[in-house]
C-alpha cells in the first residue's frame, strides 16, 4: 500500500513526485495509476509494503464542513481502492426505507398507475432504518419490517371562491398509518415516519379527480434499486496542488488570473502569482491551454489525499452514513475472513 515512509519517501525527487502525485497536462493525465506493489521501489531503498503502524501514523481525517445533510471531509494517507470501496458502499449497500408496494384503490388522475407508483417509490422517507428488519420474500407484512402510508387526495373547486383545492398532490399528503405497536417505536413527534420534504409534487389534479392509495415501505439496499440509496451523491476527488513559476509577473500575471474561471489564483504584494484557493480548482486546465503558460504552471493532484463529499437524502445524517459504511465493510471482511478460516480447518 502506498504510504509515506518515515524517511519522507523515495530519495529521487522525480520518482517521489511520480509516486505521490498525478500530473495533468494539456494532452491528458500523466501517471494516473498508483503503484501498490510492495517491491516497486526496492532498488531505491524504499519499502512500499503495507505496514499497519505506518498507516496509523500517516492517516488523518479532517472535517471541512458539516451540516445535517452534507458532510465534506478530507482523508489523508489512504489509497484509491479504500476510498472507492467506501464510496460504493455508501451509494449501494447502506439500507434505508422506501415505498416498494403500492395498492391503488382509486386513481382517476391522468397519470398511469405504474408511473405514479414509481414516483412514490422515489420519495425519500425520513425514518431510522435501523429500527426495522429486512422483509423476507414471500412473507406477510409485519410491524417490524413495514411502514404503511396512506395517500388520499381529492381535487375539487370551492363553490364560494371558485378556487381549486388540492390542485397538486404533494408528499405532505402521505400520512403514516401506524400498525400494531409502531406508535411506541416512535414516541417523539419529530421521529415519526414521514416524507423527507413536504413539498415534493407527486402529481397534478383537476377538479373531480381522486387518488386513494396505500403505500408499503420496505427496508432494502441501493444495490437492488437506487430508491433505497441513503445518499444523493457520495463522491471524492484528489487534493489539487498548483504551482506557478516565479517568472510570471506583471501583465502575464494578470492574464493568468483572467484565464481561470474559478478564480484560483491571486497576485501577492511581491507581484508573484500564487494558487490561493486550490480547493476551488476543477482541473479545467484553462490556465495551461496557452503554450506560453504550459511550461510555467504545473497542475497536480495528491494521490493519497481525498476530499470526500457526502450528501444525504435525509433518512440518515451524512456522518451516520459514513460510519455505517465502515461498519458494513468491517462486517464484509469478517464474513470473508470466517469463510477463509473454514477453508484452513
Amino acid at each position, binding site marked *: *500500500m502506498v504510504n509515506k515512509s518515515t524517511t519522507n519517501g523515495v530519495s529521487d525527487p522525480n520518482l517521489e513526485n511520480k509516486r505521490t502525485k498525478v500530473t495533468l497536462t494539456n494532452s491528458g493525465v500523466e501517471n494516473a495509476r498508483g503503484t*501498490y*506493489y*510492495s*517491491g516497486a521501489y526496492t532498488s531505491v531503498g524504499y519499502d*512500499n*509494503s*503495507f505496514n*499497519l503502524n505506518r*498507516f*496509523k501514523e500517516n*492517516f*488523518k*481525517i*479532517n*472535517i471541512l464542513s*458539516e451540516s445535517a445533510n452534507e458532510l465534506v*471531509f478530507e*482523508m489523508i494517507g*489512504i*489509497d484509491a*481502492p*479504500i476510498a*472507492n*470501496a467506501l464510496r*460504493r*458502499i455508501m451509494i449501494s*449497500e447502506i439500507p434505508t426505507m422506501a415505498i416498494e408496494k403500492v395498492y391503488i384503490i382509486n386513481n382517476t388522475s391522468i397519470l398511469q398507475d405504474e408511473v405514479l407508483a414509481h414516483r412514490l417509490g422515489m420519495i425519500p422517507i425520513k425514518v431510522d432504518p435501523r429500527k426495522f428488519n429486512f422483509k423476507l*420474500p414471500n412473507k406477510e407484512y409485519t410491524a417490524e419490517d413495514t411502514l404503511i402510508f396512506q395517500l388520499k387526495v381529492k381535487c375539487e373547486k370551492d363553490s364560494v371562491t371558485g378556487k381549486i383545492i388540492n390542485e397538486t398532490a404533494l408528499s405532505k399528503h402521505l400520512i403514516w398509518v401506524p400498525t400494531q405497536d409502531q406508535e411506541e417505536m416512535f414516541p417523539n413527534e419529530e421521529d415519526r415516519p414521514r416524507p423527507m420534504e413536504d413539498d415534493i409534487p407527486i402529481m397534478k389534479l383537476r377538479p373531480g379527480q381522486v387518488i386513494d392509495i396505500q403505500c408499503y415501505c420496505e427496508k432494502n*439496499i441501493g*444495490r*437492488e*434499486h437506487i430508491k433505497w440509496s441513503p445518499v444523493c451523491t457520495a463522491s471524492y476527488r484528489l487534493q489539487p496542488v498548483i504551482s506557478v513559476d516565479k517568472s510570471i509577473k506583471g501583465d502575464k500575471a494578470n492574464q493568468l488570473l483572467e484565464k481561470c474561471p474559478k478564480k484560483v489564483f491571486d497576485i501577492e504584494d511581491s507581484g508573484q502569482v500564487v494558487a490561493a484557493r486550490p480547493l476551488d480548482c476543477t482541473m479545467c486546465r484553462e490556465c495551461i491551454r496557452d503554450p506560453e503558460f504550459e511550461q510555467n504552471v504545473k497542475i497536480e493532484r495528491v494521490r493519497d489525499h481525498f476530499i470526500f463529499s457526502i450528501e444525504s437524502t435525509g433518512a440518515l445524517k451524512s*456522518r451516520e452514513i*459514513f*460510519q455505517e459504511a*465502515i*461498519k458494513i*465493510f*468491517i462486517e*464484509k*471482511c*469478517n*464474513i*470473508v*475472513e*470466517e*469463510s*477463509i*478460516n*473454514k*477453508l*484452513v480447518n
Partner: protein
Amino acid sequence: MNAPDRFELFVLPDGAKKVTMVRDTKIPNASMFTILKEDHTIGNLIRMQLIADQDIIFAGYRMPHPLEHNVNIRIQTNNNTNPLECVQKSMECLSREFTSLENSFIEQVQKKRNVADQYI
C-alpha cells in the same frame, strides 16, 4: 415474470460457501479464490492489499460476468507462505485498517462538536 429475484445479487443461497479455493495444477503456490455475492468493492480492495504483501508474486481479480456478482481472485506467492495465509493476513489487515479509520473519524466528529459547542 421471468426476471430473477433482485435479492439474488447479494443473498447467499442455502448451502453455498461464501469463499471457495481451487489450487492451480500448473503453477506452484498459486490458487484461485471465488467469493460469492461480492463485486469490485471488495475485489479491488483485496487485490490492493495482497500486492502490498512482500510474499506475493501475483495478485489479480476479475468479475467473470457483470450480472453475476461473484469475484475471482488469483494469487501466486513465493515459497515462504501459501495463498490461503496471505488472504487471511490481508483480510485481517483490512479489518484493522477500517477500525482505525472509524476511530479517527469518530474522534474528528467529537472534536468538531466540541469546537462548535464552545461558540454556542
